[in-house]
C-alpha cells in the first residue's frame, strides 16, 4: 500500500508526520505503542479545577477566551465550569482525541487546549464528548473506532458547520513525547474533502491537513506567529 506522508500539526493528529491510511491497527502495531492501555483516570485529570480553567483559556488570546464558556474534565467526563458570553468554548482535550493510529493515543500526559468558535462548539464538541465517553467506558481503540463510525453513519454526530474553526495557541499545550508543545496554530474543519482543495501539504504551501478516520472530516491547519499571550513562537 502506498503511503502519502504529510506534515501536520493538528489537534487530531498530535503529530507532525503521519501516514494516511485507514488501516490504523497495523500502524499501531508497527509503532510499538507505548500507551497500549488506558492509565488510571487520575493521571488524565488536572490537579486543580481552576488550573484547568485557566489552562483552557490559554488556547486563544484573552480578548476571545475571557468571555468563553469553559469546560473541565472530571471523573465522569467533561462538565461546564464557566458560563460564556461570546459563543466560544474553551476546553483541554486529552490524548484520545488523537488519531486512532497515534502511538500516544492514551498518553495521560497530553494536554491540548482549544478555543472553539460558535460553529465549531456546536459541531466539534459533540465529537469530543462522545470520544471521551467511549474512552472512559473502557472501550478498546477498535471498539471506539467502530462506535464513532456508527455514530456518524447514523447521524448522531454532526458534520462541521461552515466556518467551524478553533484556536490552538497555548504556550503550555503538550502534544506528547514526540512533538512537545509544537507551535501555535489555527484549525479549520470541513466535511471530508480532498487535501488539494486547500493546496494542503504541497511544497511551499502554508496549509497542512489531517484527514480524520473514521470521522468524515478534514482538518486544515495554519501556523501562526505568536502564542495567545502575544509572545513570539519559536522560529525554526
Amino acid at each position, binding site marked *: 500500500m502506498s503511503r502519502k506522508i504529510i506534515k501536520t*500539526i493538528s489537534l487530531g493528529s498530535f503529530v507532525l508526520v503521519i501516514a494516511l491510511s485507514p488501516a490504523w491497527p497495523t500502524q499501531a502495531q508497527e509503532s510499538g505503542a507505548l500507551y497500549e492501555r488506558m492509565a488510571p483516570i487520575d493521571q488524565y485529570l488536572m490537579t486543580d479545577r481552576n488550573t484547568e480553567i485557566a489552562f483552557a483559556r490559554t488556547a*486563544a*488570546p*484573552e*480578548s*476571545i477566551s475571557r468571555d468563553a464558556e469553559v469546560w473541565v474534565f472530571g471523573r465522569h467526563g467533561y462538565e461546564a465550569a464557566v458560563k460564556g458570553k*461570546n*459563543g*466560544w468554548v474553551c476546553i483541554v482535550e486529552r490524548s484520545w482525541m488523537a488519531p486512532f493510529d497515534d502511538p500516544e493515543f492514551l498518553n495521560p500526559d497530553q494536554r491540548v487546549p482549544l478555543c472553539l*468558535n*460558535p*460553529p465549531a462548539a456546536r459541531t466539534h464538541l459533540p465529537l469530543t464528548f462522545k470520544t471521551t465517553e467511549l474512552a472512559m467506558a473502557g472501550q478498546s481503540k477498535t471498539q471506539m473506532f467502530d462506535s464513532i463510525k456508527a455514530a456518524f453513519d447514523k447521524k448522531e454526530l454532526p458534520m462541521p458547520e*461552515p*466556518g467551524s*474553526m478553533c*484556536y490552538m*495557541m497555548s504556550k503550555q499545550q503538550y502534544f506528547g513525547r514526540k512533538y512537545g508543545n*509544537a*507551535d*501555535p496554530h*489555527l484549525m*479549520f474543519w*470541513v*466535511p471530508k*474533502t480532498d487535501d*488539494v*482543495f*486547500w*493546496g494542503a501539504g*504541497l*511544497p*511551499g*504551501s*502554508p*496549509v497542512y491537513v489531517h484527514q480524520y478516520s473514521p470521522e468524515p472530516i478534514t482538518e486544515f491547519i*495554519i*501556523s*501562526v*506567529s*505568536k502564542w*495567545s*499571550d*502575544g509572545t*513570539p*513562537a*519559536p*522560529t*525554526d
Partner: protein
Amino acid sequence: MMASNAVRRCTIFGWIFVWAMVLGSAQYACAKDDKAPYPSMAPLDQYLMDRDAEIAMARSAAPEAISRDAEILVLGQHGYETAVKGKNGFVCDVERSWMGPFEKNPEFWNPKVRGAGCYNPQAARSVLPIAYLRTKLALAGLSPAEIAEGIKAAYAKKELPPVEPGAMSFMMSKQTYLTDRGITSDGAHNMAHVMFFTALMDTANWGANLDNSPILLNPQFNGSPEPVEVYMVCTGAWSDGTPAPVS
C-alpha cells in the same frame, strides 16, 4: 514550523493594511476631495499588463506546486479571459483596484494596484464571479456606486452564487501591489497571506481583529454589497518560499 519574524511583522502590519483601507481614506478626505488621487477610472491601458507577465504574476500568488496546474486568467480590453487552461481546479488571476471596497476607498481607481490571487475550486466557483462582474461593470464605465448597484442586483436575481463552504485563496505574490500606502515597516505595499471567504456572519465568530488575534477581517466585501466576509491570515513566506519582509 511556519512561525517566523516575517509572520509577526505581517500580523502587526496587517492591521495597518486593514485599517488603511477603512480609516486611511479619512486621510484623503481631510486632504480635500479636489485632491483625491484617483477620482475616476484611468485610461484602460494603465490597468493592462503584458500578457505573459500577467500570467507569471498570477501564478506567483501561490506556491508553484499549486499554481503550475491552475487555470490562469488575464485582463483584456473586455474583461478577464482564460489564458491557460488548468488541471487542478485552482484559478489564478491578477485583480485590479476595483475589487476594493466601494465606500471610503480613495484607491478604487488606482491603476497601480495589482493583486495576484489563486482561488481554490470552491472560491473559483463562488467568489471569482464577483471579480468577473465588477470588472465587466468597471470596464463599461460605471461609477463605484453604479457597480455596487449592479452587484447588488445580481445577487438579488441570484446571478451571483452564495459563497461555498471551504472557499479560500492564496495571496503570496512578492509582486503584488495592494495600496499606495506602506503596510509593512519597510514601506512595502503588500503582505503574504491566505484569505478565507465565508457567508456574512458575526465577525466575532472568528475572533478577527481582536487583541493578539492572528486573524484579520478584510473589509473588501463585508456585505457592501457582496454577502461575503473575507478573513486573512499571514503566511510569513512568499510563494517562492522566501521569508516575507521583516523590516
